[in-house]
């Protein structure tokens, strides 16, 4: 039987050229070596790869001689028997050999199916040099990012908001809308960090004052009426209009709590109100709020009105009438007392001498000083009212009788008791017994004289109680103990002695709108602010004016001054009777004294 080998070659233009060679032998070889009948120029094929033998029954046997296999109909083999009449396809490397039979013999059609090399394979030159296929495509990753970002940053937080709406307190678990937080809350609001909806209640509606007042009902004292506040602030000017335009376009009414109390500014204490916020209204306020009684203020060092203490109009009563008078008008104040500071503080004279005499008992110095009479209150902010018994009676004694070593004093503050005590004194004591009565030692000669002395004494004894009225009058009149310090109301009718004491009011705080702590000024002498040593009258109002304060305190921007001071150092926007917020915060930090380096806001 003849083997016919047909080699099919493909030209570059795709035409097939068939060369046919008959081999009239029993066995032919397959391999890369040119000596083989079936010569495969294929590096994947061994030089002598396999042999094909005829069998007597007309079948052929294909057997590997190199140890390398081949495929029969795609299946890997080392040795196979084929019926050429049925046909088969053998695979050697990149070639296939189709086996068939016709009358002339067994035909092997050889054809290359794989390219010689990988580079020879057809490929798109437009993309082969690009990164296509090596990285995820830009389009796919762009849209993936869009979806991820919108889902994580927008849909999820809105879903959280929607599902927790109307619930009083959210759980401590993570809530996606916290991703929207533009910064940590201040320490006061730290507990709300996870509960956005505690303040941000409705979507696209700004934080409302009513929400703040849920917790701050008691401490958010009104600064002024809202409509007056807005009038005082005036319309936004210049570039501020941009912010106002945004605010009005997006439903953000002006004058809300959060406008000053900005949150999400980072962990720590909420910053005190910036001076700018005060100056926004108070600088040139009379031009906008034309009926205001307040004077303009922008900065303590630049524009600040003279102090206007609340001066007593009339002492006495629980809430005596007061009037705010500028210190520039040199106000005086009658508080019901007489007290010349100059006499008491003089380094010479009777008061100083008396002080020296009593120094061992009362710890006085060479002359009297302020602290000998004035006692700071427990906070050191202001002073206790001067107390007669504690602060005056060391010198100004009300003693009138000594019984067995005990000194009896008139009762301070109770004129009727004073009168009663004096009357009792004169009723219970006799006049001094004359030494010439009832004896002969110093008697003048003559019985008449003895009788005269006896009758004089008897008369003195009889009239002794009536002496009380005279003594009472003396106590309440010029030269008397009460009159020395107090205003006296005269008796209701001639002959009566129902003298009274005019009411006294000691003022512990003159400036209720501003804060002043004496303790913070401990380094100073009293007299550097209060010119007491030169004061002759108790009616002198010994308050220092703004000029004195400005010797140390400059405004916020006068950093060269000893103490640059913002509005917030003395003033509170939501004032109560206590220290301003800034001072309270400083005291919290154990900074008792305002340092030179004051936080500017």
């Amino acid at each position, binding site marked *: 039987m003849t083997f016919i080998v047909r080699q099919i070659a493909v030209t570059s233009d795709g035409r097939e050229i068939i060369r046919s060679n008959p081999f009239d032998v029993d066995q032919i070889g397959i391999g890369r070596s040119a000596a083989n009948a079936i010569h495969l120029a294929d590096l994947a094929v061994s030089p002598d790869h396999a042999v094909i033998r005829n069998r007597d029954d007309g079948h052929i046997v294909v057997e590997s001689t190199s140890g390398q296999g081949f495929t029969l109909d795609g299946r890997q083999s080392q040795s196979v028997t084929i019926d050429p009449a049925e046909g088969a396809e053998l695979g050697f490397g990149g070639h296939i050999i189709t086996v068939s039979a016709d009358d002339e013999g067994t035909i092997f059609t050889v054809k290359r199916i794989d390219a010689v090399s990988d580079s020879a394979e057809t490929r798109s030159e437009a993309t082969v040099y690009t990164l296509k296929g090596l990285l995820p495509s*830009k389009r796919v990753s762009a849209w993936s990012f869009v979806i991820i970002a919108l889902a994580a940053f927008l849909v999820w937080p809105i879903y959280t908001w929607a599902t927790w709406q109307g619930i009083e307190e959210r759980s401590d678990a993570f809530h996606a809308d916290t991703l929207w937080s533009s910064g940590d809350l201040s320490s006061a609001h730290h507990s709300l960090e996870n509960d956005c909806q505690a303040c941000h209640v409705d979507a*696209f509606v700004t934080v409302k004052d009513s929400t703040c007042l849920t917790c701050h009902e008691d401490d958010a004292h009104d600064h002024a009426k809202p409509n007056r506040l807005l009038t005082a602030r005036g319309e936004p000017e210049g570039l501020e209009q941009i912010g106002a335009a945004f605010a009005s376009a997006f439903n953000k009414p002006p004058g809300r709590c959060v406008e000053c109390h*900005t949150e999400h500014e980072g962990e720590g204490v909420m910053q005190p109100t910036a001076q700018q916020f005060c100056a926004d209204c108070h600088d040139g306020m009379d031009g906008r709020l034309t009926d205001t009684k307040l004077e303009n203020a922008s900065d303590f060092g630049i524009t600040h009105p003279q102090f206007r203490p609340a001066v007593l109009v009339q002492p006495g009563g629980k809430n005596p009438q007061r009037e705010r008078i500028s210190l520039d008008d040199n106000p005086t104040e009658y508080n019901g007392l007489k007290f010349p500071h100059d006499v008491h503080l003089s380094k010479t004279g009777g008061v100083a001498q008396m002080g020296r005499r009593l120094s061992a008992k009362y710890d006085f110095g060479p002359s009297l000083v302020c602290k000998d009479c004035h006692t700071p209150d427990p906070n050191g902010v202001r002073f206790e009212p001067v107390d007669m018994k504690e602060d005056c009676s060391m010198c100004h004694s009300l003693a009138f009788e000594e019984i067995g070593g005990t000194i009896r004093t008139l009762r301070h503050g109770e004129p009727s008791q004073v009168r009663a005590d004096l009357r009792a004194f004169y009723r219970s004591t006799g006049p001094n017994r004359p030494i010439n009565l009832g004896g002969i030692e110093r008697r003048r000669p003559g019985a008449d004289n003895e009788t005269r002395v006896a009758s004089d004494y008897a008369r003195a004894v009889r009239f002794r109680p009536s002496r009380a009225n005279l003594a009472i009058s003396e106590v309440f009149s010029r030269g008397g103990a009460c009159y020395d310090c107090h205003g006296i109301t005269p008796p209701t009718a001639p002959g009566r002695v129902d003298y009274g004491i005019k009411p006294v009011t000691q003022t512990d705080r003159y400036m209720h709108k501003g804060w002043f702590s004496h303790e913070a000024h401990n380094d100073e002498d009293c007299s550097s602010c209060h010119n007491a040593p030169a004061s002759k009258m108790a009616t002198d109002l010994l308050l220092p004016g703004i000029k004195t304060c400005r010797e140390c305190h400059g405004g916020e921007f006068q950093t060269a001054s000893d103490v640059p001071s913002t509005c917030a150092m003395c003033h509170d926007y939501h004032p109560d009777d206590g220290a301003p917020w800034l001072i309270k915060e400083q005291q919290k930090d154990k900074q008792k004294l305002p340092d030179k380096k004051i936080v500017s806001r």
Partner: protein
Amino acid sequence: MASNAISARSTRKKVTMHDGFLKHAGYRWLKISSLIMLICIVSYLFVDVSPRHNGGSWYGYTLGTIGALLILWLTMLGVRKRAMTSGSWSLKAWTSAHIYLGLSLIVIGTLHTGFQLGWNIHTAAYIFMMIVIISGICGIYFYATIPKAMSDNRDEMTESQMLENLRSLDRQLHESAQPLSAEHANLVLQSLEQDPFGGGFLRRISGKYPDCATREAQADLRRERAYQPKMGGDDPLDKVDALLQKKEATLARVRRHLRLKALLQVWLFIHVPMTFALIASLSAHIISVFFYW
């Protein structure tokens, strides 16, 4: 000489073309962008915003609005680039403006933050913006430096020619390896069958192919033949060796070309998707600010 002259001219032409978008109209957009940045910085320092600078002040809104509109306009380059025109609003002018205005966004965006950054979506949007800008800066750098390196490497060969060169060498190798033993033929076959464009992104961008079959085949053949006496006449292995060497040189050129070309493209794979991430998070940023107003 003639080819040298052509080469020089073409190189110069390349340089001017690639510098073109930077130097366009006498650095017009660099000047405009610098002015914008200067105005922003000076106004930031002089504008008194209480209590402190942040995105929510009138100044913050202004910068934010400018920044957002600028981002959208910069993104439009992706649409604009598909239509090449000339004139003062030519694509080159547009690209020049894109680059310099994009750089000014660093200042506008950063000042808009008021330097208040944190773990939130606002900062995420800022970070996406900075990634886009930084990848853009890489792109500028690549576009300014790579074309010359690429031109030097190509040595006036086109991409098709490089591929043809490889194919030709492969055919010759195939031819010359016919007389080789099965083992030797197998080495050559590995070289032929390896995809010269394969190897993944890291190989492409680094230009390092540690498993190069061509180099391995040559090394193996040489190691084997190092101590064998040189046989006279035609040793087919000599020819294979020479061809492998040629192929390696060509592969090196192709790979350098691939690496440079990858660098020219790779920054866009960050720049473009990040731009979309930026626009999405920017939308979330704006909506969230007004949502929790």
